[in-house]
């Protein structure tokens, strides 16, 4: 919990600063945009958080986004498959990928980094192969389907809720319940810390690990579909490039430890939102977007350092106080 406070504070500071510097930041249109983007990245981040909690890593996420993002319009507009077939196919594809990762990691004991790095190379390559490097998109069709990503639900006068946010809220609630209230979530947390002790406690660590990879790839698939429905076209070469890094960064910023066993869904959401707000801030406030990443990097770094320092000072103060109290109470 304490871990999350720091990043939450950073998010709030960035929001307040941006609102002061740019009057457009709090406009309904902008808030909707930022919410939609955060929702899309949030879905990816929640997925990868599960893998990180098991002590693994999923680098293939951006490529899964690419694969699904290209496959969906390709199946629908190039191959003219019916929706009822295309959607289950991409869903099965992403879940199958997760399953394959999980099996390779658990049964063959190949390092997650290697497995998913090969995935990163492979899936994008496959997408480039079947699309023959052509851009694929929906053009002017599939408007109803696309409202899943572009639609808005009227909420307040002048402010609508972007549809992806609904997805995110559902995913986040289910994920949070799963992680914190079910035995499976507890199993994941335990095996992330100490797989051996988990095995000795009768936990099927392999199954649980596989499940985490399935969740990660599955949500990456959902994210990929929503992304392509949102932007309407996908170029296999760069669609979803680097998204794995953003997603992992969001998860880690939100309190997941790459050593496994730690993580909270709320934190991950805040982490994902922070990244998107920062990018929005830079376009709204500055005239330069070529130092955008430099600014994001710097803000995160400064934030994390400030968080660490305040925590240390607080800790020192607390122990000093505790000591004083016990000494006076004994005297």
């Amino acid at each position, binding site marked *: 919990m304490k871990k999350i406070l720091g990043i939450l504070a950073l998010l709030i500071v960035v929001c307040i600063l941006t609102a002061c510097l740019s009057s457009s930041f709090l406009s309904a249109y902008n808030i909707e945009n930022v919410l939609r983007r955060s929702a899309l990245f949030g879905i990816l981040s929640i997925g990868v958080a599960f893998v990180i909690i098991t002590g693994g890593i999923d680098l293939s996420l951006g490529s899964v986004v690419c694969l699904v993002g290209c496959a969906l319009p390709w199946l629908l507009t190039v191959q003219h498959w019916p929706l009822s077939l295309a959607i289950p196919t991409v869903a099965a594809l992403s879940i199958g990928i997760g399953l394959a990762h999980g099996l390779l990691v658990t049964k063959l004991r190949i390092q997650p980094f290697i497995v998913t790095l090969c995935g990163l190379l492979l899936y994008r390559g496959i997408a480039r192969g079947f699309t023959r490097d052509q851009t694929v998109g929906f053009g002017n069709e599939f408007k109803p389907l696309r409202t899943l990503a572009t639609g808005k639900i009227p909420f307040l006068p002048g402010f609508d809720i972007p549809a992806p946010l609904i997805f995110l809220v559902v995913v986040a609630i289910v994920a949070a319940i799963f992680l914190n209230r079910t035995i499976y979530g507890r199993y994941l947390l335990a095996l992330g810390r*100490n797989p051996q*002790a988990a095995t000795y*406690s*009768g936990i099927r660590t392999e199954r649980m690990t596989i499940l985490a990879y399935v969740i990660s790839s599955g949500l990456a698939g959902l994210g990929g579909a929503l992304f392509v429905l949102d932007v309407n076209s996908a170029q296999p070469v760069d669609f979803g490039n680097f998204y794995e890094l953003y997603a992992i960064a969001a998860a880690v910023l939100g309190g997941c430890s790459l050593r496994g066993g730690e993580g909270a869904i709320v934190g991950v959401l805040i982490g994902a939102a922070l990244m998107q707000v920062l990018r929005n801030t830079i376009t709204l406030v500055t005239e330069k977007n070529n130092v955008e990443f430099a600014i994001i990097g710097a803000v995160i770094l400064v934030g994390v350092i400030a968080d660490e320092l305040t925590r240390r000072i607080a800790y020192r103060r607390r122990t000093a106080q505790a000591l004083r109290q016990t000494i006076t109470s004994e005297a």
Partner: protein
Amino acid sequence: MSLPLLEANRLEKSFAGVRALRGVSMSLKPAEVLAVIGENGAGKSTLMKILAGVQSADSGELKVDGAARAFRSVGEALSHGVALIHQELNLAETLDVGANIFLGREPRRFGLIDERKIRSEARRYLDQVGLSIDPTTPLNALPIGQQQLVEIAKALSVNARVLIMDEPTSSLSGHEAQSLLKLIDTLRSRGVGIVYISHRLAEVEAIADRVEVLRDGENAGALQKGEICHAKMVSLMVGRELSQFYPHQTLAPGAAILDVQELRTATHPKHRNSLTVHAGEIVGIAGLVGAGRTELLEAIFGVNPPVGGTVLVQGFPLNTRSPQAVIKAGVALVPEDRKHSGLVLEMSVRENISLATLARDQRLGFLNREREQSLCQEMTSAMNIKTPSADQPVQFLSGGNQQKVVIGKWLAAAPRVLLLDEPTRGIDIGAKQEIYRLMDELASRGVGILFVSSELEEIIGMADRALVMHEGRIRGELKRAELSEESIMNLATGGDASHGSSIVQTASPFSL
């Protein structure tokens, strides 16, 4: 009277929420063995860590050779000749044995590590602790007992003037413990000052020149050479006398509840081991370090699947490839290595205690929090676990209290067959009796108990029957009446069952 080598005055140390040391003082002279004893969580390890520069005290004074010092790092302590053998193993798993022994103090030639010297020197120290393995063996290929010996060899290689041993024998069997005590004797005669921590009071009685007792982070008294005896130590530690140490009454055994037939384990596939445990029976397994006891239990439990043989529980065969199935059949294993197999160190006491029973208590996959909470309370009080709260991560508990958490976790599972591997490792004398009482109670309720112990005393005191293993094979079985240190040691070192008592043990100064 010679100047103390090491002196500590009014040391204070607090952790968040816990005052571990409240003004503890002690001193150590050259050529002296000072035993420090106390209940679990009394602050022994904390004190030793401060003496060896691992942690620093909040206040108080530390003197080496009469001069005030404050060690800010282990390196500083080592350079003043203070070495510590930690209660928990602290070795680099990816390096080999030789590299571990000389880690941080590698001999060099032309600036490069002198591997040949490491090998020859390491062999010397390994010989001293009675371990005949190649120094180039990777450390993670050794069982925990042998790792403990490596840890001791490493401390010896420092050639320290002050050698602190925090429960060095907790994972050693009597045989190895004996040779360690001999070694301590030699070191003492060379003028080394030794601080010795153990819950095995017989060892303390045999070796200590002086005993310092800690209770709740304070000095609770000291015993000089002449006054050291079991009863006095216990009363200083616990604050009362302990009566009737081994409570177990042999009952008429019930039906066979665990039946192991011709089990072959991966490391000793040529031996077929069979054994039976009846309901209400406590069966002990004795043997030297590396005799294959742990392996046998792990094979039954399914975490280290056997390569052959069958295991029946109440007549039904177990799937020994799946710990889940074994647990479902009512079998529980308290593993030997709590740090790696027993606990998720970063999780709280509550989460650790409930970990093995979550599936049983689930409601449609959801956690049953009330049940979890009540189980935790039940076990904390039954086992007398000393923790500031149920939410304390177990890594911040003292070693003995961690062990109690492991046992509590498996008692919570209410097993029909309980496999215990060194269950009292690092546990203080009061808690030990508590555990023996629990074992007796479970047995009287019809639970079959199979327990591995390296403390012969414990086997003799608690077992209805004992199996003795030697190099992966059950060499023989001893009835309660036949149990004696001689008969067990004879079998454990490869002797023959029929002449058990007739073989004269090599005279040892320490009757373990």
